[in-house]
């Protein structure tokens, strides 16, 4: 198999283990390409990619755009502030307009959960979910999975078995948490989610994860710590009393970091709230791979475009 036999990439739930591994292994190839001097390959020449962002995001959009450009796609960016969306055009109408212009790939970020799923059923273009509401952020989960496998050199084995991964923070409102949990557990990792009960609902047990409210007890067991960005506005809904108290209970402080395993990997999907979920000094540690995640994000997104486009033997492409 050298392509994804699917029109869309909407969530991790619908991906098989084989598909996840295919994406990760292809990503390694693309990472090799774009870390050399000639960074482009003509995989998507003549294809049009539109990044359609209904929610502000800089890093994810840029990562997708760079990935598309390195594959030689024609790229257009559709941002909400300057578009007809402010005039109240429906999502369906907007996207039918894009389709009429023969856009092949729509990379969509949307504040409403399931919006890409709704869209994908009503259009012919490929839809790649760049994050929908609290629901899914599959490319983030795939780049997180790739990053862990790269660090642990387990890409050939194709498993995360034996690893204990902690996801810390606002699990309830996190699409990254949901997609990460699905990807990590599919590949055999033990996952524990940790945060205050208001942000870590019991219903998450359906994913087969453990729940902890005590970071200090959990930390020494973890091979991977994935910290989520805490949204300051959650405090207004009384989901936690103050950022100060959150920091005391759940931040990866220097003192806590000392009690972690020597081979621990610290991850964060960004953007980081320094001093809230993670202390400055921990961010600067070589065990924190936040920037490497960003690099891997481009590689993984190149792989996804490539595989959705039908793939091609990678060796041939190497000759270009």
């Amino acid at each position, binding site marked *: 198999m050298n392509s994804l036999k699917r029109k869309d990439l909407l969530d991790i739930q619908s991906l098989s283990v084989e598909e996840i591994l295919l994406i990760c292994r292809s990503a390694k190839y693309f990472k090799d390409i774009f870390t050399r001097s000639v960074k482009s390959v003509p995989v998507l020449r003549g294809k049009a990619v539109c990044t359609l962002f209904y929610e502000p995001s800089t890093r994810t959009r840029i990562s997708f755009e760079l990935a598309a450009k390195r594959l030689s796609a024609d790229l257009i960016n559709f941002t909400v502030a300057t578009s007809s969306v402010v005039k109240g055009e*429906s999502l369906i109408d907007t996207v039918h307009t894009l389709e009429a212009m023969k856009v092949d790939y729509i990379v969509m970020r949307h504040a*409403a959960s*399931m919006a890409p799923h*709704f869209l994908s059923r009503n259009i012919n273009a490929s839809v790649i979910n760049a994050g929908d509401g609290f629901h899914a952020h599959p490319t983030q989960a795939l780049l997180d999975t790739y990053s862990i496998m790269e660090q642990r050199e387990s890409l050939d084995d194709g498993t995360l078995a034996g690893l204990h991964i902690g996801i810390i923070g606002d699990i309830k409102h996190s699409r990254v948490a*949901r997609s990460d949990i699905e990807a990590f557990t599919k590949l055999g990792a033990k996952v524990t989610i940790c945060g205050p009960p208001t942000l870590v609902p019991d219903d998450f047990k359906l994913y087969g994860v453990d729940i902890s409210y005590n970071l200090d007890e959990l930390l020494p067991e973890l091979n991977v710590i994935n910290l989520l960005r805490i949204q300051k506005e959650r405090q207004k809904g009384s989901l936690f009393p103050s950022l100060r108290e959150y920091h005391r209970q759940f931040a990866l402080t220097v003192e806590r970091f000392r009690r972690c395993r020597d081979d621990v990997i610290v991850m964060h999907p960004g953007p980081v709230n320094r001093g809230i979920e993670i202390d400055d000094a921990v961010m600067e540690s070589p065990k924190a791979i936040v920037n490497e995640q960003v690099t891997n994000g481009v590689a993984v997104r190149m792989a996804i475009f490539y595989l959705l486009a039908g793939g091609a033997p990678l060796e041939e492409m190497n000759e270009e």
Partner: protein
Amino acid sequence: MRIVIKNGRVVDPASKIDETLDLLIENETIADVSRGISVRKGDTVIDASGCLVLPGLIDMHVHFREPGREDVETIFGGSQVAAKSGFTSVCTMPNTDPVIDNQALVRFIKLEAEKGPINVYPVATITKGLKGEEISEMGELINAGAVAFSDDGMPVMSSVLMRRALEYSRMFDVPIIAHSEDLDLADEGIMNEGKNSTLLGLKGIPRESEEVMIARDVILTRLSGGRLHVAHISSGGSVEIIRRAKSDGITVTCETAPHYFSLADDAVAEYLSMAKMKPPLRTEDDRKAIIEGLRRGIIDVIASDHAPHSLNEKMQELEYAPFGIVGLETAVPLIITVLVRENGFSYLEAFEKLTVNPARILKIDRGELKAGKVADVTIIDPEKKILVDEEFMLSKCKNSPFIGRELYGSVIHTICNGNLVYSNR
């Protein structure tokens, strides 16, 4: 004018009659229900062999969107949908634009309804402007033709106002129909809170947002008297609260809608906004509890909560699409398919919830097949399959999760006030 209905299986929940009989209608009235009624020259004869002959069905909870959203549905159009679906009486909910909170608007609904084929009973608001601040002029509204009061679509959040409404309504002996939802607890949720909302990353509406309000309202009814009718209950917890309230002698009745005994919240992933309504579809356990609540008579009424929304409104992101589905056309087929065929309900058990029970709650002299009563009659072939497709859905709006389903139970004739208002033969 005489209509003779021959050889049908007459099912009359009020008298518990379920046997093969003939039925004679003279002008507006049922003249006779017995064996071997002879046919005279000039009679209209309906052969109802193999069919159920039921009292005209009553749907005590519909939204016909007029005044305000005539593009979506009208009183006339909705009445035609109701007639095709076997209903001879409906109660229209007052959350229109403007809301039905004064006698002129109640009279307007009655006037529009006269053009249509069936009886329309307006429900007026509990509070002026649906604002939950002051109670409506209940006496004036009843004089104009209102049969009940409800702020449907919005709960009466103020406990003291709900108490006053129940107290004040006592002198009219009319039901206060509660839309039971604690808006704070519902917290702008989209679907039932639980495993499926977690998987889909959608904000949950906990069942408790419904249950705490029902509990509050039955306790208030114990305090104030009055007649509480709880609209569209969806959870097993709600059934239990009402069971207990009834056993405590509190004057409460309740209804559920066909979708709550036909679907669970896993349908949201499949049907998206077509499975979005308030209260939301709950779990499979709740679905079973609703069925048991109906079987044990804890739930008195089945009402469709027919809620048309345009395709434009529904073809949006799930979070932005409005709550509600159409339900008139699929009500009878779902009752026959899910309750009778899948869950072994007798026809008497199933159809008392659409005939005698709502008639008693609303104090309208209909819903019975007895000599001397108004001739509202519905004839259904319970063995005939129907395909729920765009053509079958007569409503302007086709916002239903049941599109594409094959179900049992086809309405053959609807007779309202002695007139044959629908016939598919």
